[in-house]
């Protein structure tokens, strides 16, 4: 008698949710910082000050601090958002990588089950 078992739960299925959640966290963080930090600062800096005032801003002034925020933050925020995309892709790749083992098991199960299906069944009643 053959011994067959259903496929064991692959380790990838335990790990992939972590990467999916990480993807959501990074992308949401980028969206929140963009919406609540960068957008108001950009509107306030560019839309609330004439060019002459902006250009004349001295060291230590709030205007220069705003300029620093709106120019420096996107340099790390955009890569963070793309790290989120990469995390989603790792999760997807992990899921795909679990399929071959499941299909191998499916083949083994079918190999022993088909003779029995022919022997016991063979009809196509619903």
């Amino acid at each position, binding site marked *: 008698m053959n011994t067959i078992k259903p496929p064991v739960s692959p380790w990838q299925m335990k790990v992939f949710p972590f990467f999916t959640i990480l993807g959501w966290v990074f992308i949401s963080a980028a969206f929140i910082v963009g919406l609540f930090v960068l957008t108001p600062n950009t509107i306030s800096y560019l839309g609330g000050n004439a060019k002459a005032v902006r250009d004349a801003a001295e060291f230590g002034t709030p205007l220069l601090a705003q300029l620093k925020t709106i120019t420096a933050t996107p340099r790390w925020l955009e890569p963070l958002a793309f790290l989120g995309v990469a995390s989603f892709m790792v999760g*997807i790749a992990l899921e795909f990588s679990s399929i071959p083992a499941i299909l191998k098991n499916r083949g083994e199960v079918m190999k022993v089950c088909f003779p029995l299906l022919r022997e016991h069944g063979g009809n196509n009643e619903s």
Partner: protein
Amino acid sequence: MKVNKSPFPYNMIEKMMPSFGRIAMMGWMIVLIAVLVGIFVLGPAQATFFSDAKAVREGAAAGSAFVQANVSRHIAEAWVPQFKFFGLGLGLMAIVMALGTIAQKLREMGIVITNHMPKDLRSSVPAPPKTVRVFQLSTLMGVMILMGVLVIGIVLATGVVPSYWNHSIASELNPAVVGSTLLTQLGVVASFSKWLNPLRLFGMAFLFTGITLALTVIIGTLRLQAGLLVKFYQQATTKG
């Protein structure tokens, strides 16, 4: 073989799923159009604008070739990236649709095999998991967000962007004073990408989640069917 029909609007989604090839092609064509706009509109506009000294191009009056080129490049930059991401979104949607079709076919095959088992050894095929609905809705949400972003991009490209840039930089834009329409418009023109770009990725996140969940359904279906076959095997061999 009897496969239960899904309720509205899922029946519509499921009916559309096999046309993933057409959707993928549409996404690819949209990205191709973005490339062509880059080559034939954005590139030449940039080249025209930067073809002379800073003092000349910034001093050019409204209606001149320089100002027109400046308007064209800013218009293209307002809608083309959103259009491109919409194309990518359609590509990702096509992947989810293909995975959904695979899951559907696997289920149909499972029902066929179960129907070939003798009645006394036959296990009932469980209803499709709730995850199916979640991945369908997640995909729809992602595409709708990308479509919304594209609409916002078009509204900006036809409204505030040309309205602001269709002025001489040196004599109108730079001297704009606090409280003027021009300075308010500058605030909008310079800030929309700060929230619109992450929003695009937010839409993509829904699509990636759709792919992830569709794969979970396929893997779950494969494991469940193997489990049903093992159960049948054990019962059939015990029965002799």
